[in-house]
């Protein structure tokens, strides 16, 4: 298979402007037309293809990323509007050493993914929930309410709900959840 390359057209892009933002702690800049949304910018200008696109009208949640700490639909925000912001994507969820974030580990342990397409958006939504809770406990109904903005067609949501509950309600100091059985 040919290695993936960053999807910049060979011809110059009419009307492109330089757009700079901090992505996963690293300052990134690239040229793009103002009409390029943040999801396409991350994927095709910066080569960060972990952020997925499922509907481009703000319902499916596959493109969810954190901008200045809060979750947004990257398909409903122009890249140019993210100039100067701190963007966090699925690629930035792992630790610097590549170790899985507890949410990633739990999603895997609890089989909260199958095809994996919605997974990055789900994880970024849960990352925001974790930050909001700041250690406070959470109920299953609250987790399901929070995940209502992320469509998954494979799992019936059960594994991802269990994963979230395991991590978010884990006693302090216990990072990895127990498997379901």
């Amino acid at each position, binding site marked *: 298979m*040919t290695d993936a390359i960053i999807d910049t057209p060979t011809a110059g892009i009419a009307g492109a402007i330089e757009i700079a933002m901090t992505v996963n702690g690293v300052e990134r800049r690239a040229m793009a037309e103002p009409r390029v949304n943040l999801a396409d910018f991350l994927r095709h200008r910066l080569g960060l293809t972990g952020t997925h696109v499922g*509907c481009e009208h703000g319902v499916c949640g596959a493109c969810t990323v954190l901008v200045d700490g809060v979750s947004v639909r990257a398909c409903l925000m122009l890249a140019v509007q993210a100039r100067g912001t701190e963007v966090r994507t699925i690629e930035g969820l792992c630790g610097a050493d590549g170790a899985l974030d507890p949410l990633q580990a739990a999603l*895997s342990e609890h*089989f909260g993914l199958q095809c*994996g397409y*919605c997974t990055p958006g789900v994880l970024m939504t849960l990352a925001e929930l974790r930050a909001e809770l700041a250690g406070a406990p959470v109920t299953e109904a609250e987790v*399901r309410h929070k995940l209502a903005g992320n469509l998954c*067609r494979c*799992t019936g949501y059960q594994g991802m709900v269990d994963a979230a509950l395991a991590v978010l309600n884990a006693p302090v100091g216990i990072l990895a959840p127990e498997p379901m059985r």
Partner: protein
Amino acid sequence: MTAHAKVRSDAPSAGLGRSEARLEHGPLVRGKGRFIDDISLPGQLHATFLRSPVAHGRITRIDITAAAALEGVRAVLLYDDLRPLLTAPRVPVSMPSGAIRFDVDPFVLSRDEVCHVGEPIALVLADSRHVAEDALGLIELDIDPLPPVVDPRAGLAEGAPRARLDCPDNLVARTTAAYGDIDAAFAGAPVVLAEEFHLSKGGGHSIETRGVVAAWDEAARRLTVWDSTQMPHRAKRVLARALDLGEHEVRVIAPDVGGGFGPKFVFHPEELAIAAAAMLTGLPVKWIEDRFENFFSTVQERDQFWTVEVAAGADGRLRGIRGVLIHDHGAYSPYGMALPYNSATNLIGPYVLPAYRLDISLCLTNLMPSTPTRGAGRPQGTFVMERLLDRLAERLGLTRDEIRQRNLIRPDQLPYPTGLFTRDGGEMTYDSGNYPESQRRALAESGWHDFEPRRAAARREGGLIGIGLANYVEGSGRGPFESGAVSIGPSGQIVVTTGACAQGQGTVTMLAQLAGAALGTPAEKVRVIAGDTAASPLGLGAFASRQAVTAGNAVHLAAEQVRAKILRVASAWLNAAPDELELDDGVVRVASDRERSCPVSRIAEALAGSPGFSLPLGVEPGLSAAVDFQPPGLTYCNGTHVAEVEVDAETGVVRVARYVVVHDCGRLIHPRMVDGQVIGGVVHGLSSTLYEWMRYDDEGQPLTCTYADYLLSTADVTPRIEIHHMESPTPLNPLGVKGAGESGTIAASAVIASAIEDALSPFGVKLRDLPLTAARLSALVRAAGGAA
């Protein structure tokens, strides 16, 4: 080699019943998957399609001048531009079926007549996706509208307009599912009930849309196509045939596929158009379907109209069912008869039905072609049977569990020939299971018999709750075969290649677990290559809940052969009998003297051969084996679902409060992945039952083309699904396994309807149509005089 296994081995594989970590997870939770839109080739062009804005019409003029002149546009292609590359005018996609009366394969791009909104007419290639979309708006298109057919009942009526001018009428196929003496069954039957059902089923709706990246290497004469598909081998065959290429000149790769659920089994015209465009331009071409166009360019499952009668004895025992099924087939025929025929055959379910006759008519309409989505027509058949049983129970004053109990096939009746034939001509025979026990367990686990006190308690709080029950079977593991090969080279790496193809099912883990178990190696050390036509010469792919049955047994048998070869060589080298040896993570040891050992890699090295030296013991070259496993027939999984619902009779809003599944798919290879398949299937079924509804207006214009209008089940409305397994091994394959991929969907509509009717029993509401939206339920309650 080919294995025609009819007898299960006495010792089930050590690979069964273990829930290993899923190997697929690592890259996916890191965002390091490789989906179709993650693949970009240097110099690639971006494609978009101009699509028909009308359901039926004749193209009178296309002017591409302005579009082609737009900066960044490389080409605007029409049918006539692609036709010289093609061996035939139409895309050769249809499945063989004697019942299909007309050639209604689609064209790569519309030639003159457009037959549904969304039919591709022109292909724009540009330097960016944005510019390609800009160009679409510059193409001038004139279409003379023709009268559309949007309702299959009207389409079959005398004097109806024709959905396609190249067909003499709209009855694209007619067939009958029948056995027994149906007239005798109805003559003098103590109870006869008649019902009509209008069943609309939702689509596939993988969260990843379709997509294709194609590259043509002129010098090597090689076409490489990355395709978000469930069936790369079939795509390769269609491409080779349509483009007049040899099999060696086409490679199709399914990368990570973001869900399939049926539609990605169908070869769509865009797959050929993109490949042809790559050959024509000599440049790589990428097309990613967007969600909006997905609603009118990807095949769907839609409407069926049933008119049926059931005859029964005074004791509630079924005597016969007869009726008519009119099926909306859509504008083209990429899948033949499978969908309505599955509905017809699945109606029987786990019940003794002495006589049956269903006349099935498939009507061409000016809507998207209708092909299977998860469940593939079976939920509709199960819905009809289960509704009829509930009606009979009510008429006879029996409980809903009792009427089912009286009709269930007993274990001593298995194997049970239903009297029908499967679509490939085999007898439809249930192979194994215990249907009464399945129902008994479901009733016990769900607290069915304690429901009335719960209902009374809810009433006191003003709540209206109900409980429902449904049984089903599913013919799984469809043939004719699947390929699996296991090889070990001098590196010692175990490599499994297969024609199977995964879209989230966990096929890689399942096959690694089976091969690893046979070869004494942890699953995570086994490399599985699936979904690449270069890796496996033959293959079929993902459909009909088949890959554990077909690919699982193929890999299991191949791995056992490799194991035998290892032990044969090691036996000679270590001077020990094969049964004294054990395989331990790449090393063969003598069990009683573990110092006597040899690495498997050295055996592989020896069998790879050295120039001029003989192979040890005269064995065949290579430490590898390939099996194309042919299941002798479908193996039938079964289950019972019980659901509790709470209905707001005033608003029609339904909450599914509890959902219990008893599931029997034979031996479990990986129990947690089976759970995942069943839960996902149930929720797909719930979504289709309560929310999903592809709507069209009278002109055939689709009305629900966003996820704000077309609703999928979300986490907040999805109940926890409780699963209890039974394991009735099938005698039809060595592992004793049955399919599980679609099973969960099949009873969902039936059980929810049963539960809602039960909740609304004070109003006497009867449910006949799907989906069961809040608006519909409220209207039924109001029509029944309830809830002022």
